[in-house]
């Protein structure tokens, strides 16, 4: 709650963001789509036509049915079925759950770790700053996908390993942004006043610096979540991400890849479209927010 | 009387913004005679630079010249198509900018930037263009110009860069040079050198010169005639000696009393009280009245232009010396 307190206190920033989104039809649609997808992920198990991972309800005779087919028991597979006779729509909503869950969770962890390190670097400066920033530069210089790939090649598959890899490749972005935002804030009068008043370091860091650095960080966080979702899908597609037991959208698409050549396009096309819609709508919303927070480029 | 080089009549340049229209230049009229040096003086934001850019058709969008006429050697510039305007820029009217650190492209050599300026208007060989560039550099006092052509802007000092900019302006021997505070960004010692240099060259090549400045002292040393601009309008105009010895408009007087060197020893400096009005919320009538000690009821009406011989002013309560 403290992390979001700027939403309550800083009327102007939040107001600006909301107004900025409301005045751009494109951003408004994207935000609504975003919210709907998150909602669908949240209530997934209660709205899907079937539980796609309950083997008892799957019928192998229904395998690879094209979209709109009807099952033996009268249920319509609006988006077709996969190789195991699983309803694609249900599988996709479950996949969405996993993808969003992994993306958001790793994004938040990376945001927390990166922000703390960035604030520490900005506040203390000197050697601590140099050390942290050297590591940050190194991390940012390495391609995300390569680091994650190598790590997972060493560690093996697994939900927590994927999250660990995603956090590892993302924290540096937050650290750098948090540091530069904090450096701007640090020189403002209120921080000096707090120091003069003898307020403790942690309080200055988290009570004063953090709330003022948070809006840009949350926008970056949105864009990073989109990246993380995309990266997780890519890793899962390559077969070194999530295991079969945690099917994300990436895995669904990978399953469809094998039968794409034989014409069963829906098994990979629909999950892909959903993934695209998710990442695209987050990116459009995030991009708009960034535009509003960064007036230099966003004087629309 | 011979035809003036430049004749600006009722020129208005406006910038539409979300919060209203900024009238950067508001019904401004003046002329520049052949070989005349005219000083255009005002505070920052008075519209003096925009006036200069308007003449060259270089007002940044969304600003534009909305009305009035700019006649250059009898030719109307405001209606001229882009291409014809480009043929005049740099060829017949040249401009020198305020900050020499910013006017030259950092990634192109001085030679490239000069040669392209020659080739933009004259069909000559590259060698010929380069020779002319070299001669122009020599003319403005840059040592070993041949080698300096291959140098890049960052290898020059501010004063030297401004000399390069002057050399570029002189390449085509224009009839009119508009100099937008060309010495403001320079060291004081360099300022006077550049000042002297420009005056010398203007006389040598019989060029007319519009010198835009916030510094009445500089204009006094240089100009034949002075135009004083305030809040987008010309409030006083006349021969430089007359205006400076007997200013008619209280604003001109205020400007003079605010110059440290112009006030006799022992007398206090008298800064003009208040600030220039926001360009979005200019008062009706005389826009100086909020800062003017002589302002009365009548000043809320628009003062008309009073003309007496070669002097002009826009004030209901001109200085005693002039009112007679």
């Amino acid at each position, binding site marked *: 709650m403290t992390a979001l307190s700027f939403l309550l206190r800083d009327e102007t920033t939040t107001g600006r963001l909301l107004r900025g989104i409301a005045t751009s039809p*494109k951003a408004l649609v994207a935000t609504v789509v975003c919210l709907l997808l998150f909602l669908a992920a949240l209530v997934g198990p209660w709205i899907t036509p079937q539980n796609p991972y309950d083997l008892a309800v799957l019928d192998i005779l229904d395998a690879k049915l094209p979209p709109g087919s009807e099952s033996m028991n009268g249920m319509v597979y609006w988006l077709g079925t996969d190789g195991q006779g699983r309803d694609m729509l249900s599988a996709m909503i479950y996949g969405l759950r996993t993808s969003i869950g992994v993306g958001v969770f790793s994004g938040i962890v990376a945001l927390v770790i990166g922000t703390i390190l960035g604030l520490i670097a900005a506040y203390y400066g000197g050697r601590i700053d140099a050390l942290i920033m050297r590591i940050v530069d190194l991390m940012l*210089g390495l*391609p*995300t*996908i*390569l680091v994650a*790939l*190598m790590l997972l*090649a*060493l560690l093996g598959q697994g939900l927590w390993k994927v999250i660990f890899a995603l956090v590892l490749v993302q924290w540096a972005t937050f650290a750098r942004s948090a540091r530069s935002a904090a450096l701007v804030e640090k020189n403002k009068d209120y921080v000096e006043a707090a120091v003069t008043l003898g307020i403790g370091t942690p309080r200055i860091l988290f009570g004063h610096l953090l709330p003022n650095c948070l809006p840009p960080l949350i926008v970056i966080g949105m864009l990073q979540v*989109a990246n993380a979702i*995309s990266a997780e*899908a*890519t890793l899962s*597609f*390559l077969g*070194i991400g999530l295991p079969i037991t945690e099917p994300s959208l*990436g895995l669904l*698409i990978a399953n*469809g*890849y094998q039968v*794409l*050549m034989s*014409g069963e396009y829906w098994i*990979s*096309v629909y999950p*892909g479209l959903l*993934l*695209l819609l998710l*990442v*695209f709508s987050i*990116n*459009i919303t995030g*991009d708009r927010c960034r535009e509003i927070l960064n007036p230099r*480029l966003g004087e*629309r | 009387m011979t035809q003036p080089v430049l004749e600006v009549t009722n020129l208005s340049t406006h910038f539409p913004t979300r919060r209203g229209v900024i009238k950067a230049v508001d019904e401004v009229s003046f002329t520049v005679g052949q070989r005349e040096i005219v000083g255009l003086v005002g505070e920052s934001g008075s519209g003096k630079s925009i006036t200069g850019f308007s003449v*060259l058709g*270089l007002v940044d969008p969304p600003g534009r010249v909305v009305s009035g006429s700019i006649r250059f050697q009898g030719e109307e510039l405001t209606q001229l198509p882009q291409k014809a305007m*480009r043929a*005049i*820029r*740099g*060829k017949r009217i040249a*401009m020198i*900018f305020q900050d020499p650190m*910013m*006017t*030259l*492209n950092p*990634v*192109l*050599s001085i030679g490239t930037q000069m040669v*392209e*300026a020659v080739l*933009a*208007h004259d069909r000559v060989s590259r060698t010929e263009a380069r020779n002319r560039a070299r001669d122009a550099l020599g003319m403005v006092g840059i040592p070993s110009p041949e080698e300096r052509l291959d140098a*890049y802007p*960052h*290898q020059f000092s501010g004063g030297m860069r401004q000399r390069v*900019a002057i050399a570029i302006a002189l390449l085509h021997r224009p009839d009119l040079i508009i100099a937008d505070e060309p010495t403001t960004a320079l060291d004081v010692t360099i300022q006077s050198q550049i000042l002297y240099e420009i005056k010398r060259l203007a006389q040598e090549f019989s060029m007319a010169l519009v010198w835009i400045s916030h510094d009445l002292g500089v204009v006094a040393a240089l100009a034949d005639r002075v135009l004083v601009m305030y809040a987008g309008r010309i409030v006083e105009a006349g021969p430089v000696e007359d205006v400076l010895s007997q200013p008619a408009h209280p604003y001109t007087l205020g400007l003079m009393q605010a110059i440290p060197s112009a006030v006799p020893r022992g007398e206090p400096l008298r800064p003009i009280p208040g600030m220039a009005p926001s360009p979005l919320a200019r008062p009706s009538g005389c826009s100086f009245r909020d800062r003017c000690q002589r302002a009365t009821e009548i000043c809320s009406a628009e003062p008309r232009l009073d003309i007496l011989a070669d002097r002009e002013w826009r004030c209901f309560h001109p200085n005693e010396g002039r009112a007679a």
Partner: protein
Amino acid sequence: MSVFIIRRLMQSIAVLFVTAVVVFLGVYAIGDPVEMLISPDASPAERAQVIASLGLDRPMWQQFLTFLWNAVHGDLGRSFVFNRPTISLILERLPATLELTLTALVIALAIGIPLGLISGLKPNSATDEAIMTGSILGFSLPSFWQGMMLIMIFSIWLGWLPSTGRGELGSFLGIQSSFFTLDGLTHLILPAINLSLFKLSLVIRLTRTGVRETMPLDFVKFARAKGISERRIVFVHVLKNILIPLVTVIGMELGSMLAFAVVTETIFAWPGIGKLLIDSIMRLDRPVVVAYLLVIVSLFILINFVVDILYSLIDPRVRLGEQS
């Protein structure tokens, strides 16, 4: 200039050394080198032989020296699966990856720079809006799915282009490449587009930002005042300034493209080092993974080195600053 190059070379060697240390620590110190580098199917005799040849029974620093000595001599271990030196496996697949990456880079630049220019010169127009939305779409398209859709549309539905493999190689001046045969080119198109799309979006955004930041600068206005054509201003004055940040970023991104080739090569069965990496990870052929890492880091360093030199060629401030 040569001092600059030598200094950069020393830095590169230092970075490579650090990488070698990190890789060594990762494999030898944290992991179990016996398990990492010796095939699980090996007989005890073979194990003993490899342990002896790698010196795994000796102290850590000696092992490191051996590792370094071997690496310098191009010995990065043997593949379990192919039973051949990993370095030759990688080197014979490297040209295919470089060919793919460079083609993708050229596509990204050839389309991205013009689109970015159009967008940046007319900010907030409908065209700009469309291009920018398109670029966000480009960022958002998961590369692997996008590749599958390319195959589905152009190979399966339309049947215009082959879906997988590298196609026939042609030889020209002793270089073997897909560029020199029609079959090779048709095989190259889809993977190259797949790999370029993400970077294309980046190039568009960078160019647009660059244009928007450069156009309001004084030197652009000064160039206009010289009478330079708008075309020359955009393509010479502005573009050359934008190239500086563009080259820097592209240098960094070339590395990430090499890494991302892993995805493209997997989808299109392109026989490059990326596919080799994934296959090796799947087959637990770890010496290849280790060797890949060292080779790719060396490539990064090489690219950075080239970019620095390129950078100094474009930006006179860097080039001449180092000289004095």
